[in-house]
């Protein structure tokens, strides 16, 4: 259907519509009582089956990541090019893990994708974290593939403590233009889960089964 015809019809419909009046709301977002953000984040992330580590120093982060990866018997990994701590990828390589390339080629997409079948660990940073829901905010783009937090069984995220915020709504109000600037961002609240079989909790249905959050001081 032609766009103008479609929209004209919608416009005509909204002229005769009898919607109830919207409730009055204040211009400022409602605030929550103050609390210790780190303690809340830790509790809420754990309640959705994520594992919170640290805080560690920036210097100690690579060792923490290697310990988590080897704890899962990982043989391969993919990682964002830039992470809040340096030396993570080289430490994983030194520990004997193989690195899987994350740049999708123009041709042979399916073949490239199939190389992800055996990647065990994905390492990412985080743009922010939301204490109220135990959520990581991942902003994808150059050097930051979406697949790293999606296809491996184990997702390890490095999070700078200073980036803790309270709720999604409050965080979104601080930088409303962010979504227009990025092709893809995702709010990750714990490992992939389903309750589709008799409402029984089941982790790692399509995405990661394990989410580790390494807090950095």
């Amino acid at each position, binding site marked *: 259907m032609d766009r103008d015809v479609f929209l004209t019809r919608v416009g005509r419909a909204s002229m005769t519509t009898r*919607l109830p009046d919207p409730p009055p709301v204040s211009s400022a*977002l409602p605030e929550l009582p103050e609390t210790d953000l780190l303690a809340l984040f830790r509790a809420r992330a754990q309640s959705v089956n994520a594992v919170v580590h640290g805080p560690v120093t920036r210097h100690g982060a690579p060792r923490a990541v290697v310990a988590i990866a080897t704890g899962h018997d990982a043989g391969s990994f993919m990682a964002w090019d830039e992470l809040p701590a340096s030396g993570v990828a080289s430490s994983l390589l030194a520990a004997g893990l193989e690195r899987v390339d994350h740049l999708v080629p123009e041709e042979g997409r399916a073949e490239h994708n199939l190389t992800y079948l055996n990647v065990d660990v994905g390492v990412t940073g985080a743009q922010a974290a939301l204490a109220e829901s135990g959520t990581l905010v991942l902003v994808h783009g150059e050097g930051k593939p979406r697949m790293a937090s999606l296809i491996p069984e184990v997702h390890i995220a490095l999070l700078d403590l200073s980036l803790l915020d309270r709720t999604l709504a409050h965080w979104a109000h601080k930088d409303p233009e962010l979504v*227009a600037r990025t092709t893809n961002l995702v709010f990750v609240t714990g490992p*992939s889960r389903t309750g*589709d079989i008799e409402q029984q909790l089941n982790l*790692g249905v399509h995405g990661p089964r394990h989410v580790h959050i390494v807090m950095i001081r």
Partner: protein
Amino acid sequence: MSESVTFLSRAEALIGTREAEAVENGVRSFLALRERVVDEFPIMGAMRSRARAIRLHSLSHLDRLLSHFADQLEAAGGRVHWADDAAEARQIAADILERTGSKRVVKSKSMVSEEIELNHHLEGLGVDVVETDLGEFIAQLAGDTPSHIIAPVMHMTRQDIGRLFAAELGVPYTEDPFELNRIAREHLRAVFLEADAGVSGVNMAVAESGSLILVTNEGNGRLITTAPRVHIALMGMERIVSRWEDAAVVLETLARSATGQRLSVYTNVITGPRREDDPDGPEELHVIVVDNGRSRVLAGETAEILACIRCGACLNACPVFRTAGGHAYGSVYSGPMGAIVTPGLHGMEPWWDLPYASTLCGACEEVCPVGIQIPRMLLELRRQAASEGRLPGWLEKGMSRYAKTSVEPAKWARAKRWASRLGALVSSRGWIRRLPGPGRGWTESRDLPKPARETFNDWWSANRGS
């Protein structure tokens, strides 16, 4: 009532079955989880008011928001298509798949795709369509329809699913949910990675940035919009808000109301196809905006139902849904919300009886994250059905006689005396336990006390002043 299949006949076939029992159990666990996360969030009430204001504002500016959204998305490299009805939406999707040479399609859960019966159409064209949400995957394997918008196979037991997997996937029988989950994961892994196109729904779109918001728990929604070369999103035209901050407010209420989560596991915000610097993501992004009856609803008395964010809370809260289950509604959208959406989109025939599948207790409106006045609209649709002469003759006649009698004191007093005498005849030991004729169904689950021998008015005339 006509001889055709009605809500009542479908419900009667389901009530008391294992399916209805499974629904009741599932719903109870959702309700308990919801209550916990709503109670711990002291600004839930304020967020709900804001969410309501945001959704109603969007509906009253829908044409402008859609136009802005399309401009922004196209500026980001996406394409927007406009579908008048289900047939056109299917055709647009099929054309995109054909042009891009896409034969293997992976889908995430989308109510609009169910509404337009997309899978059936694409399969007829030789396209291989795989549902990837675990529940939808199970429903597709079983050749069944989803029974709940959030939990599609709430009506199936683990044994049903175990037998289904053994028969359809050639795996040994197991009824262990963890094992069943692992089987589905293994089976679908390569399917995701080798697919040519992904088809998703849209939970919300943002006009100001041209963004799509997709909410999933399993990660399938992210996989199907990341791995394949082409992403096609089906979007009901009402699914839009002005700004990203508005969307964020609505998201604070969505998962809490739907599944009792604070946020769903993955809330994905997508703005256009892969850009030059992006290491991954689809090369093409198409959004199909679907009207399919919605502009008619917008112009009418039930426009407010378009504010619905499809959380499913009203289904869980509804005593009728809980007793009969989603399949009793016979339509894609079930529960209190479905009883308004379905006749709105597809007409009163044959759906006029769905608004009667309610006790008007108001629990739906109470839990609705955007405060939709569901009972008001159910009554409005009942009024329409009555004025179109759809009610059975006995009810029609009975009601009009009641209306005439109840406004004339003398007639009313006489009627009450008669009712008292008749009541005495059909009662035993102080209670009316069974009524004949149309009253039979009503007394199947209720007893009423025997009416007093003397009406209050008679007593008053005899005793006042004494």
